[in-house]
Each structure stands twice: as structure tokens, then as C-alpha cells.
């Protein structure tokens, strides 16, 4: 699985700019599914047909990563920007970014009297040019950039930018591949969504189009197993987390039971997640139309929204198993 993960995490894809990922993912899954549709917003909806008499399940992982959007280019060619999604300003300084056309740059900051004065408006991107004219040959206002960072393989633990949520995309690809020769009763819609990081937007329109009986998001969650960590009882390597609550959703008790029973019946390790912040595509899915049963399989992740997010591959493999069993048995 590391190959597809490496490919996905090293690809450019801030919110609304998921085109390069769309190409890779469509290529990876085309021969394994019965139909692929790309909607107005850019979601990929891949359909694996069931027997036509059973239920409809939507699995969703988001393609987009947090990024920056250029709002101003000054006379010397330095770029100013606004955040796309939950950017942590402290993580930006010294970081490297890339644009859709391959242009790269570094982020730096105006001289500060104190680190307490740090503010996103004091940061800028240097793309190695001397003037506005030169800069505008490479970058325009409204262009978005994402971080660049190589995939780092630490054995069982892997580190990369945008594991949120390329790891979810990789899990869906793996599920699709493993289900190749298996005829499921249920109709399954593997959905690679856009614009999750700016407000769960892609999942909203995709869920409307699919109108599933069950929606399962696959996303990362914050781990609480580091020095002085966030107060959440989630550990890398102890299994995928079954989400019970975050800001966007309280998991329906029937879905909670379904997910826990499925994991226990198949001896798949799992943890229970109660996250005091954040949200996932499941939040948008469960409020679509007249309401949809929804849940979320979360991959424990350290250093979320930094260029070095870390997950444990065992949790990923177990998430694939759990996803497949839900698709088979719901």
C-alpha cells in the first residue's frame, strides 16, 4: 500500500484544486468499478454494482489538503495569501509550497519583535523572482498552493503531508482493489470528495446525488499519545477509531453498534473516538435530504495539519478490513 500512499501524499491538491489527484485516482480505480462520475464540484463518484435488491452504501474520503490562496503580489514579486482550511500559522515558516503548474516557493515572515506577534498577514511566499512582472508569469492572484514534503517511511509508522486525508483515499483504493472479484449484494459508491477542509462541501452534493442508506467517511483523527498531548484517548497502532462524536456529528447508535459489532465479529482491533473539535464528511452526509445513517472510520494521526503528519500502517490495514466487512454485511 505504501506505493499508492506515497503517490497520493506527494501530489498537489488544495481545496478546489483537486484535479491532479482526480487523474491519479480515476486511473487507479477505473478497471475495478462499474461506473465513474465526476460532478459539478469535482467529486469522483465510483459505483460498484450490487444485486440491485439491497442497500446503497457511500464511502467517502476527501482528496483536498489544507493550502494557501494567493491574494496579493507586491512590486518585488513576494506573494501574500489567505488560508484554505485550518492552517496553523506556526507550522508555515520555513515551509516549502508548490502550485498547480509546478512553481515552488518558500514561506517566510516579516521581522518580528517577538514570536507572540506572529500573524498570517506578516507571512509571505518567496518564489525566487525579482519583480511583480516576473512573478505573474508563474503565479496569479487566486492560485492556490499546497505544502511540498517527501513521503517518509519509518517502518510501521509513515510520515507525510496531507495524510489528512490521502490516507483515506488510499484506503478506498485498496478496498476497491480487494473487492475486484467479489460480487457484493449492496451497491457501493466510493466517493473521493472535494473541499472538505473548507466546510465539508463536496460531501454535501455527493451525498445528495447518491442518496445512500449508509454513509461512512474515512478520515484521520487526532492522536493523544505524544508528550503533553491533546486530551483524547486515541493511540497510534491500536486500531482504527470508530467515531462517536465530533463537532459535525453525533454518531447514530445503530451505526455505532454496526461498526463495533462488525469489528468484534472479525477480530479487527478498534478504538472509540470522542473528538472535542473538528468534523468530517460524515457531518455533511448525515444531514442530507431527510437524514442519512452515517459514521466515520478514523485513522489515528499525530501532528495533524502539519507537513509531517504521522500514522501507523497497521491501523490503515485494519481500516481497509473494517470497511470491506461493512460493505459486505450492512
Amino acid at each position: 500500500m505504501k506505493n499508492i500512499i506515497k503517490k497520493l501524499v506527494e501530489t498537489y491538491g488544495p481545496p478546489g484544486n483537486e484535479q491532479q489527484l482526480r487523474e491519479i485516482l480515476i486511473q487507479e480505480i477505473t478497471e475495478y468499478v462499474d461506473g465513474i462520475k465526476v460532478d459539478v464540484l469535482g467529486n469522483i463518484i465510483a459505483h460498484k454494482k450490487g444485486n440491485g435488491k439491497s442497500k446503497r452504501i457511500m464511502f467517502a474520503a476527501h482528496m483536498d489538503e489544507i493550502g494557501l490562496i494567493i491574494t496579493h503580489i507586491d512590486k518585488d514579486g513576494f506573494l501574500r495569501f489567505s488560508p484554505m482550511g485550518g492552517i496553523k500559522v506556526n507550522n508555515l515558516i520555513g515551509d516549502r509550497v508548490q502550485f498547480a503548474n509546478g512553481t515552488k516557493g518558500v514561506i517566510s515572515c516579516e521581522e518580528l519583535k517577538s514570536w507572540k506577534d506572529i500573524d498570517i498577514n506578516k507571512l509571505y511566499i518567496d518564489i525566487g523572482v525579482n519583480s511583480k512582472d516576473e512573478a505573474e508569469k508563474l503565479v496569479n492572484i487566486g492560485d492556490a498552493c499546497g505544502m511540498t514534503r517527501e513521503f517518509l517511511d519509518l517502518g510501521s509508522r509513515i510520515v507525510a503531508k496531507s495524510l489528512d486525508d490521502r490516507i483515506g483515499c488510499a484506503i478506498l483504493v485498496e478496498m476497491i482493489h480487494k473487492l475486484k472479484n467479489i460480487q457484493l449484494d449492496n451497491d457501493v459508491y466510493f466517493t473521493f470528495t472535494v473541499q472538505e477542509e473548507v466546510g465539508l462541501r463536496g460531501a454535501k452534493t455527493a451525498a445528495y446525488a447518491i442518496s445512500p442508506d449508509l454513509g461512512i467517511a474515512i478520515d484521520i483523527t487526532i492522536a493523544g499519545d505524544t508528550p503533553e498531548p491533546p486530551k483524547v484517548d486515541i493511540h497510534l497502532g491500536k486500531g482504527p477509531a470508530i467515531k462517536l462524536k465530533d463537532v459535525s456529528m453525533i454518531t447514530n447508535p445503530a451505526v455505532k453498534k454496526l461498526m463495533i459489532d462488525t469489528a468484534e465479529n472479525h477480530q479487527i482491533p478498534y478504538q472509540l473516538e470522542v473528538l472535542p473539535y473538528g468534523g468530517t464528511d460524515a457531518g455533511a452526509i448525515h444531514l442530507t435530504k431527510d437524514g442519512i445513517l452515517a459514521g466515520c472510520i478514523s485513522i489515528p494521526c499525530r501532528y495533524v495539519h502539519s507537513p509531517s503528519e504521522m500514522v501507523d500502517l497497521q491501523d490503515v490495514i485494519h481500516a481497509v478490513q473494517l470497511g470491506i466487512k461493512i460493505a459486505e454485511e450492512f
Partner: protein
Amino acid sequence: MLLKKLTEANGVSGNEDEVRRIIIEEITPFVDNIKVDVIGNIIASKNHHLSGPKLMLAAHMDEVGFMVVSIESNGLLKFRAVGGIDSRILVSKHVVIGENKINGVIGAKAIHLQKRNERTIPLTIEQLYIDIGAKTKEEAEKTVKIGDYVAFVSEYLTMGDNYAKGKAFDDRVGCAVLIEILKHQFDMPIYAVFTVQEEIGLRGATVASYAVNPDLALIIEGTTASDVVGTDSKHYVTQLGKGPAISVMDRGMIANPIFNKYITIIANNNNIPLQVRQGATGGNDAGKIHLHKEGVTTGVISIPVRYIHSTNSIINIQDYDNTILLTKMFIDGVSKTKGMTI
């Protein structure tokens, strides 16, 4: 003059009736059908029988303002903001209250009574009151009541070379553009929607997009321009006189790249100046419309407004005229090729 008529009318969010009446009167001769929905949106259609992409044009009728929340024993009114208003701009402004437009002035404790530290901190809305010249609560209650809407009073005036000042340009400029557009003939189904309650959460657009169910949507907005002394050029957002603005991103939507490309080509081909909105804050009806059902291809064209959300805002009339022209060219183009064909 349309802009004068529209901006001097009052329509604080949820109380758009006066604006609605003017718009209905203006557009009736030019549209096939007019409907006012449950929450007060005007949905006017032209050519609804034609095939082709169904275009929804939207501009919001409401403006920011206030509501009376209590009447004090001395006859002064306490009030709260409806929509986003900078409380520093309020003291000594002329307002009108309720349906009968009772005159009032926003007041505050006199400066010589303010403590030293109070003078350096802007007054909050809680510290302000509206004075309607009543001596007692009973006297005030004869003309105003709790829940009455309060609107700024501001005369529309032209000034300088092609500038105008007034209130509520956000978004009466958009309403005026739609009215002018409806006077033209187009060869495609068009639904012009004048929405309510945009300023307090894009509420009108939410239900209107459900009713219209468009294939394509274009929102005409008034947007902030901060091209003034003391602002670094990187924070201008837009500039007056540089033409209509397209957005790249705001709190509600990441711009549709196809729309932005298409509208840029149209502007270039017709020598209409176009600027890019340099910021990612704010939001408008597009935020709701583009996520309707399975998703709607949606674009926004904005007219720059200085001192937006205040009693005296300023626009450039050429920007306004160019927005009408650009919108017309956009619809002509889309109707000719049944979509945004580049």
C-alpha cells in the same frame, strides 16, 4: 434614478418589504412571471418555457441595520445590530424606526463624562441608545415598540467624476443590475431572484435555490473596497474605478475556475475592465447556491463599495455600468452556446 430609489428605501434583513415593492413595480413589465415565496424572496422568470441551461441571477434586497430591544424609563431606546456593523461608526447618526419611520439619533454618553480609559476604547452597541425626542417610556411607546426595525437615513448623491454616495449599496447595486438586465431579451430561461436575509446567514438564497433548481447561477454583489489612505495595497481587496470584481475565494465558496476563466475572456473581448478580489473573507448567496442538491455551477461578480455596511458608502458609477454590461455579455454568451463554452 434607480439607484437613488433603491438605496433610499429601507430593507433591513427580514423587513425587505419596501424594497420588494419597488423592485416588483420596476420589473413587472419585463418578466413573464413573478412569485414571492414564503420568506419573501422575489423569484421572477423570463422564458421559462425555453430549453437550455436554466440561469439563476441573484442579488439580495436586505441591508444591515438594527432592531429596538428595549425602551428605557427616560424614553431612550436600546438596540442591537442586524448583520455586521462596526459600532465605531454609529454615534450621532440619523436613523428611522419602524413602519412609520420615526426619526431618531444614535447617542452616547458625552465625552466629558467618559472616564479616561473609556475615551480610548470604542463604544459598544450596548453603550449606545437611540434618542427619538421622547421624555418618558410611555411617550416613546406611543410611536415605537420593541422589535421595530431601525435603518440608517442617507440621501443618494452623485459626487466628483462618476462617484455616488449612499447607504445599502450592498446589495441594492446588485438589485439594480438585475433590474436593468431584465429589460433585455435573452434566448434562454432566466430566473432573477431578489433574496432576503443574506446579511444574517444567506437564508433567502437557501430556499430560493431549492425553488428554482438552476443549472447555472450568477450572483451580483456589493463588495468591500479598502483602497484608502493608511491601508497597505495588499489589503485593498478591491479598488473603485477598476471595474467589476471576480472572487477567488471567500468564507462560503471557492470560485468556480471555469466561470472565472469565461468571464475574464468576455471582459477582455468587450474591453470591460475586470479586477480580481484580493481577499478571502466575507461571503454571499453563492455559498449556499453552489452547494444546492448535486451542486450548481456558480459565479460571482462584485461591485466595489468603500465604507460598506455604513450610513455613507461610495461607489464608482462606471463600475456599476460595467457590471451591467458584463452581466449582459455573459448571458448573451451562455445563451448562444447553451453554457460556458470557452
